[in-house]
């Protein structure tokens, strides 16, 4: 395999591949060649990729077990829906407000809870996620348990694809910087990291806020694609779903999270044809994958052009 180390060449290939993917789907949609069903699956994939990548920043790279991601998604979804549906503001305002709002929620929740470790943090975040849901259920302005219906369908393919790409780019760029290394060092050994001069609290909160912010983006996209949001959608089982994608992909692997998000969405869709046993199969697959590959599909490795190169070239 020739050298693809050159960062510009690499970037170029990535941009071309992504642009081609985007244009292809966009063409198929406008030409009416893509069945609505597949369009919905693609939208779900984009949203799930956004969710999984943002959670992988918190769980995979920072090593902080959060079980409240659906809560942040809910905050984003509601804020965005209020902006566009009730206040008639443009979609972009809704998205930005959703990200800021969810990020702020991440900050408010992160500052006190990130002092906790391991399972305790998991439970505290789960509790916060549920508090967000119960609170939404009791706010009359957003119709309590009935939720908001009839949200305009602004989240078209460019928004969905763009949202996922922006999330990936921002988080990958963050990870591959000194800030990212600081964040990863917390996962590896928090005490050692602190003693190497890294303000671990600050970076844990940073990762949490960024992760929550992008969950908010996913929520905004969700609300404007699926037309209705209600608190029940964002319960702790939704958080588990996102967590499953991250762990299946491999903690600490962005490409893993992306692949797993796509895989899980496709699997969910494929299992639709087995209405009676779809959840049984899903559960079994989950257990089997974990037993045989507890580190997830990718471990903490990334799938890169070089990997493709190696596979292509037959070298291992």
């Amino acid at each position, binding site marked *: 395999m020739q050298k693809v180390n050159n960062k510009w060449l690499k970037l170029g290939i990535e941009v071309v591949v992504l642009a081609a993917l985007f244009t292809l789907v966009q063409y198929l949609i406008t030409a009416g060649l893509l069945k609505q069903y597949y369009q919905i699956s693609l939208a779900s994939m984009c949203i799930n990729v956004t969710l999984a990548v943002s959670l992988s920043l918190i*769980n995979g790279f920072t090593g902080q*077990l959060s079980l409240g991601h659906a809560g942040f998604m809910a905050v984003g979804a509601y804020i965005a829906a209020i902006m566009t549906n009730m206040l008639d503001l443009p979609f972009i305002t809704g998205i930005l407000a959703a990200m800021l709002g969810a990020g702020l929620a991440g900050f408010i929740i992160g500052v*006190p*809870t990130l*002092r*906790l*470790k*391991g*399972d*305790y943090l*998991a*439970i*505290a975040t789960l*509790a*916060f996620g*549920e*508090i967000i849901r*119960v*609170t939404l*259920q*009791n706010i009359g302005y957003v119709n309590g348990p009935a939720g908001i219906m009839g949200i305009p369908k602004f989240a078209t393919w460019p928004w969905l694809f763009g949202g996922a790409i922006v999330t990936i780019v921002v988080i990958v760029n963050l990870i591959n910087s000194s800030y990212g290394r600081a964040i990863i060092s917390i996962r590896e050994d928090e*005490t050692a990291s602190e003693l190497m001069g890294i303000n671990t609290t600050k970076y844990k909160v940073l990762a949490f806020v960024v992760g929550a912010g992008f969950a908010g983006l996913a929520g905004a996209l969700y609300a404007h694609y699926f037309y209705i949001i209600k608190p029940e959608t964002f319960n*702790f089982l939704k958080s*588990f779903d996102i*967590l*499953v994608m991250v*762990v*299946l992909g491999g*903690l600490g692997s962005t490409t893993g999270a992306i692949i797993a998000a796509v895989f899980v969405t496709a699997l969910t869709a494929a299992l639709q044809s087995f209405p*009676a*046993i779809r*959840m*049984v199969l*899903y*559960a*079994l697959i*989950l*257990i089997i994958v*974990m*037993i045989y590959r*507890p*580190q997830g599909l990718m471990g903490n490795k990334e799938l890169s052009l070089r990997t493709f190169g190696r596979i292509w070239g037959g070298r291992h």
Partner: protein
Amino acid sequence: MLEFTQQIVNGLSLGAIYALIALGYTMVYGIIKLINFAHGDIMMVGALVSYFSLTLLGTNIFVAMAAAMIACAVFGVLIEKIAYRPLRNSTRIAALITAIGVSLFLEYFTIFIFGPAQKVFPASAFPIKAYALGGLSVLNKDVFVFVSAVVLMIILQYIIKWTKTGKAMRAVSLDQEAAVLMGISVDKTISITFAIGSALAAAAGVMLGIYYNTVNPLMGIIPGLKAFVAAVLGGIGIIPGAMVGGFVMGLLETMVSGYGNSLYRDAVAFGVLIFILLIKPSGIFGEDTGEKV
């Protein structure tokens, strides 16, 4: 005042149920540090076994409970062997995901076999008697659940503190490798832990069946979550902690519903959990252990 006393009674009997579930939860966590999300579902299986024992075999409630406990003990050991043991040396999060998988599997496999509808626990299994104590309503099932929770806690505490198995459990919980060197079979000890924990879950399931006289495949989710919160409140891994945590949760929920807004009940319960975690992460009874550097 009468109303307040009644609320205390309500809270204690609700708390006893949480405590009962939390006992098994906390025990499994204490030994292998796994949040066994399937615990609530094992409880459901226990309730279902007792339901069939009552309706199909026509046994009395005590036989039904024994059957449920034995069945779930076996079942718990199997689950541990098949799903959790291969992951013992993996990350905790992998084990957690597996637990979620097991939980989903139990729920939906039960639905697949028996359908999602609730099944009605025969009322004759446990005839309800109400005692009116000066305007206060106390039911025999309240007393039954309360006493069972306390008795089971004492038995459990005895097993862990005084029996050889209990000592082995504590050793495994402290340091698995050292336990092996001391000649303790870790596999066996963990199996026994799961057997006891699952039997406790089954007992709780039967009580829940008696208490609310219905059984359904998804019945374990919410009580399971609440009981887990109770276990963390009391200090997870600590038997009396689970008990106290359960009662605290029960009283708290009752008081919020009774004197505040019943819709914020869960939010307040979770809020208190967070508050306790923040001021004392190891729970009410837990000991703070610093990290060794």
